[in-house]
Structure formats: structure tokens, C-alpha cells
């Protein structure tokens, strides 16, 4: 027996819309809310057409009030709905930080599971699109250090759809980070209808033995480019797209690093306090005797994400990654 699944060729942002539409159709309890998500379809068109299809009660334009509507979504989730909140840019999530930190993340443990918060917070993140200040933050680490929240960050249309559907079905709050730079960077075949990708599982996107390169979100294409360059120089990189930042895919990472003994991490965020350091800690714990070189990090700097005239200097580039790969391999 063969089943044919129809697919569409979608960009990442279209895959997000497709996931939302799929779940709004599938479950009455799902709703979408945020600034400009209604008629406007979101400033990136991620919710395009959804209000027309599902009505103003399920695709809700909120007041400009991140703490308020995130808090309201918590109340909705506790009371039987599955809200998917859009934060217009990750840099505007900070007013909602208290709500996420003290409530979304803690209501289950606070009540020993009596009340729960099955909600998703979606946010475009990252630099490289010439946006104004604060529109370019990649502060995922503020949420991985927040027990009670999962953090997901896809880099491809296919993964975006499958992971967003998993996030919506997840019984706990999920922060879903969408790399703006990948929104329309390329298209991919994306199956119609519902499918899921397990949260907590990374993906090996290139097979190699010489060095492990770990990246997520908008850094995955950067890492891949570097890996291809490295291949020309005879260095074969094992490239991992993390996809989930909390919990990390321990097996995949450990297996790869134990194989190669050399690691390069590519992170858009500031070096200090970033997820890369969680990876280094994991490698310290599990791969100490396998390491042939110190872990190399290619990261954003310990400076505020600069205004866009300088953002290309802030962002890791394939060249910088390649340099780090060579350093790791020749140590």
C-alpha cells in the first residue's frame, strides 16, 4: 500500500502559516493572538488569511500590550484553550518576561499539575534583515534558563511546520523562535495537513568525521556554507541543526562529539551566557576524554546587537566559522 501525501513548496514563514491553519482547523481550542495578526496577517504575513477563515474570536488582534496579552493567554490556557501568541519581534518579549517567568513556566509545578499552560509563544528573532534597533535580538538563552518552558528554533520550512504543530500539541509552554533571516530565504516541499517533529530532537544535516559543527536557526545555513568550504579543503564536518534549544538533544550531540573529538559552535547571540556554553558544559560532562581540541565558538559579540549599518560585523559568517573549523582541526 502506498500513500501519497500532497506537498506544497513553501517558505519558512508560509510553513508557519500552514501549521497554524492546520491546527486552527483541527482543534477548536486553538486560537492565535497578538499585535496585527488579524486583518493585517502579521507584519511578516505569518497569519495571513487566518482571521478571514477563522474569525475575529479565534484570530485576535490584541492591544499593544505584551504583558497583558501574554498574561491573558495564560488565563486562556489554564481555562481550556490553546493560545498561540505572536510576539512581533523577540526584542519586544521583555515586557512579557515576568508573565512567562513567574507564571507560564511555573503554574504546572506550582500546582503539582492541577493547572497547566499549554500555550505557544511565537517570535521572529535575529539580525541580518536591516531592521531597526531592538528588532534583531537573539536572546533565546533568557528562556533556556527558565525551567518550565521549552525552546524550539527551526531553520527550515519542513521543520518549522512539524515543530510548530508539536508545540501547539505540547501540554506545556513552548517558546517558538522563527529566524527572520530564513523566513523567505528558500522554499522546500512541505506536506499538507498534519505531521509532527519531536521537540528535543536535533538533526544531522551533514555527515562527517573530522569536526562537529553545531548551529541553530539562522546560523544553520552559515554553518553549512562553512562546512562545504571546509570539505573543499578536505575537512569533513558533521553538522547538527539543534532545532530545540531546551531540552538539548543529548544523544545526537554526544555521539557526534565523541566521534569527531572536535567541536565548533555557531551562535548568533552574545558569547557570555549563550546556549553555546550549555553545549560546552554538556561536552565537558560527557565527552571529556574524547576531546582532541577545545571547543571553538563563533558567536555574536558581548555587545548589544548593533544598528544595522554594523550588523554584518556582529553576525557570524561562513568565513569566521571556517576559520574556527580549521583551528579546531589543527589544534
Amino acid at each position, binding site marked *: 500500500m502506498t500513500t501519497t501525501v500532497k506537498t506544497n513548496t513553501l517558505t519558512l514563514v508560509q510553513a508557519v502559516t500552514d501549521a497554524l491553519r492546520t491546527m486552527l482547523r483541527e482543534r477548536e481550542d486553538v486560537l492565535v493572538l497578538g499585535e496585527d495578526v488579524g486583518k493585517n496577517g502579521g507584519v511578516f504575513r505569518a497569519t495571513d488569511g487566518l482571521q478571514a477563515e477563522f474569525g475575529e474570536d479565534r484570530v485576535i488582534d490584541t492591544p499593544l500590550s505584551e504583558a497583558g496579552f501574554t498574561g*491573558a493567554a495564560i488565563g486562556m490556557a489554564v481555562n481550556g484553550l490553546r493560545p498561540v501568541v505572536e510576539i512581533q519581534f523577540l526584542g519586544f518579549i521583555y515586557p512579557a518576561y*515576568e508573565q512567562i517567568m513567574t507564571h507560564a513556566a511555573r503554574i504546572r509545578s506550582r500546582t503539582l499539575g492541577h493547572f497547566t499552560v499549554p500555550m505557544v509563544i511565537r517570535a521572529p528573532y535575529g539580525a541580518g534583515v536591516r531592521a531597526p534597533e531592538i528588532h534583531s535580538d537573539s536572546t533565546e538563552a533568557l528562556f533556556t534558563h527558565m525551567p518550565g518552558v521549552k525552546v524550539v528554533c527551526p531553520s527550515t520550512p519542513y521543520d518549522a511546520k512539524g515543530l510548530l504543530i508539536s508545540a501547539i500539541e505540547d501540554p*506545556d509552554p513552548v517558546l517558538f523562535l522563527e529566524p527572520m533571516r530564513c523566513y523567505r530565504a528558500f522554499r522546500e516541499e512541505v506536506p499538507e495537513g498534519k505531521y509532527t517533529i519531536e521537540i528535543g530532537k536535533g538533526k544531522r544535516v551533514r555527515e562527517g568525521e573530522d569536526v562537529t559543527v553545531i548551529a541553530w536557526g539562522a546560523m544553520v545555513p552559515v554553518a553549512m556554507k562553512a562546512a562545504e568550504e571546509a570539505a573543499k579543503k578536505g575537512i569533513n564536518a558533521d553538522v547538527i541543526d539543534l532545532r530545540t534549544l531546551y531540552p*538539548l538533544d543529548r544523544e545526537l550531540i554526544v555521539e557526534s562529539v565523541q566521534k569527531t573529538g572536535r567541536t565548533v559552535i555557531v551562535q548568533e547571540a552574545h558569547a557570555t551566557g549563550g546556549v553555546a556554553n550549555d553545549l560546552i558544559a554538556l561536552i565537558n560532562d560527557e565527552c571529556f576524554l574524547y576531546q582532541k581540541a577545545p571547543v571553538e565558538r563563533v558567536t555574536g559579540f558581548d555587545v548589544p546587537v548593533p544598528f544595522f549599518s554594523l550588523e554584518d560585523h556582529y553576525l557570524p559568517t561562513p568565513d569566521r566559522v571556517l576559520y574556527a573549523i580549521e583551528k579546531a582541526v589543527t589544534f
Partner: protein
Amino acid sequence: MERFPIIQIIDEEGNVVLPEYREKLTKELVMTMYYHLIRTRTFDRKCVSLQRQGRIGTYAPYEGQEASQVGSALALENDDWLFPTYRDHGATMTFGHSLVRILLYWKGRNEGCVPPDGKKIFPPSVPIATQLPHAAGAAYAEKRKGTKNAVIVYFGDGATSEGDFHEGLNIASVFHVPAVFFNQNNQYAISVPITRQMKTKTIAQKALAYDIPGIRVDGNDIFAVYFETKKALDRARNGEGPTLIEAVTWRYGAHTTADDPTKYRDQEESKRRRERDPIVRVERFLKQIGWWDEQQIKAMQEKVQAEIEQAVAEMEQFPEANPADMFDFVFATPTWTIEQQKQMYTSWRERA
């Protein structure tokens, strides 16, 4: 102020000053109220004494605010939602929370956050004002489900200064949800008097910023609290949107048992305030009207005492907190880091 006069049904002497309410004050209703008033007060005093004896942790007393809490909670229907703060266990116990669980809360136990089956009582919100948006959202969900349930959310005068107060009320008003925002203006936020908290003379007038009804009641008059809350809940159920109620009251004691109010206010003031005590007032009313029955009252007090002693005993016999709980309820399914840490910790403890 003129626009927001304090609504009173009985005055400090126990006289009914709004005669149209006279016949609504049935003996059954008033005796129920009185029962809850002494029940909540007795419980509060017990908690303060338990804290002094080190049998529970830091505790937030509400003595003086019983009329506000009991009156508003009695106005609720069984299927309504209640979002309290750390000082509103007078309201939650009246609405049906378990005394044992309230005691456990103050003993640092998560069990204190679990309401009895079917009771929609949210855990007390510790970060000030954060519960207001929750209430707006929960009310939105009721509306979407097409129920007639309403939501009540409690908060203090200090809470009105937080952004979440504003955002919660604004969203509730725009979404036109069935929620009652019940403010207990006890005139202090720890040591900060209301005059340094806001320039306005009333909290009720802040409703004008959201174009919703703003009601100011004597928070020591349980009748006024009860009937105004009921009206607001009725409006909510009938699709007329949210209401802001300001119940003007006073806490006699410390902010919490860790607080020393002599540092910041004249203790005479709290003594004087006892003249307007919410319970004394009802007693005067009961006596005037001839419903005061020494025997019955005594029985009531004994019942309350016994219930509370029983709850204390249960609290103290409650099985010890299990460290595994700390790991097991973070997510529906623990992540590997949590699982690993739990195993490490458990095996470490077993070894030790």
C-alpha cells in the same frame, strides 16, 4: 470623589442606611455572612499564632478586611473563577477552598495551591498584579465557551501602580469579558500609604480610563460588598463586560508576620479603625433586629473552632514534602536534564 461616593448599606452602628435593601437582608443570608466572618477571622488569628509558634512560615493576615473578602466571595456562583493574592484566603475559604490546603500553603507546600475538585480557585499570585491579565484571559475563555460563568480577581491598592493592572483592565474592557476586578484598598502597600501610591483620591475612578463601571464601596460593610459584587457579576454574566470595584478597608495588623508596622504608621490608627470593624457592625445589626441568639452564636463559634483545630491537626499530620515533586511537575514529561538531576540527587541522598 463626588463621582464615586462610598456605597454603604449599614453604617458603623449597624443601622441600615439604604432602606431599599432592608428586605433583601434575610436572616439566612445575614447569618451565613456572620458565620463566614467569624470563621475567617478565627482562622486568620489562628494562623498568626501558628506562625509565632513556628508551626507555619511567614503569613499574611487580613484581619479587618473580612467583609470585603467574605462579601465578595459569597456573591460568586459555584462555577465562577477566583483569582486571589496571598492575602485573600479569607475569600478562597469562603468560596470553598480547603483550610488544610491554605495552611499547607503557608507551610511552604505546593499542595496549598491545589483547590478542591471542581473549584476554580487559582493559586495566590505573589508577583503583584500579574493575576489581572490571567483573569481577563480566563474570562475570555468562558465567553468563548458560551458559559454564564464569571471571573473575580482580587488585588490591593498597591497593585494599581503596576503595568499589569492597566493592561489587564484594558484588555478586559476591549474584549468585553465577564470579569470583576475587585480591589481591596486597605490603604497601604506594606509601608507605603495610598497617598504616595497614586495622586487620585479613589481607585474607582481609574475605571474611567477603560470606560467600564467603577464602584466604590465601604469594604467593611459586608452587605454593600455583597450586593455590589453580585450586581457586577450579573452584568458580567449578561454580557455587559467588566467592572472595577474598590472596597475601602483597612488591615489592622502587619503586612505579613515578617513586617513591623510600628516602623511606618501610628498604631493608634488601627485601634481607632476597630470602631468600624466589619464584624462588630453585623453584630450590632443582628442585635438591633433581634436575630442575635447567644446560644446559636456560641455553637457557631465552637463549630468554627473545631473545624480549624481539625484542619491544623491535618496540616501537621500531612505527609512530608517529597523531593521528587520538585522534579516531577515541571513538565508533563520531565526533560532529560531534570530526569538526570533527579536521579543524581536521589542516588546521592540514598548514598548519604
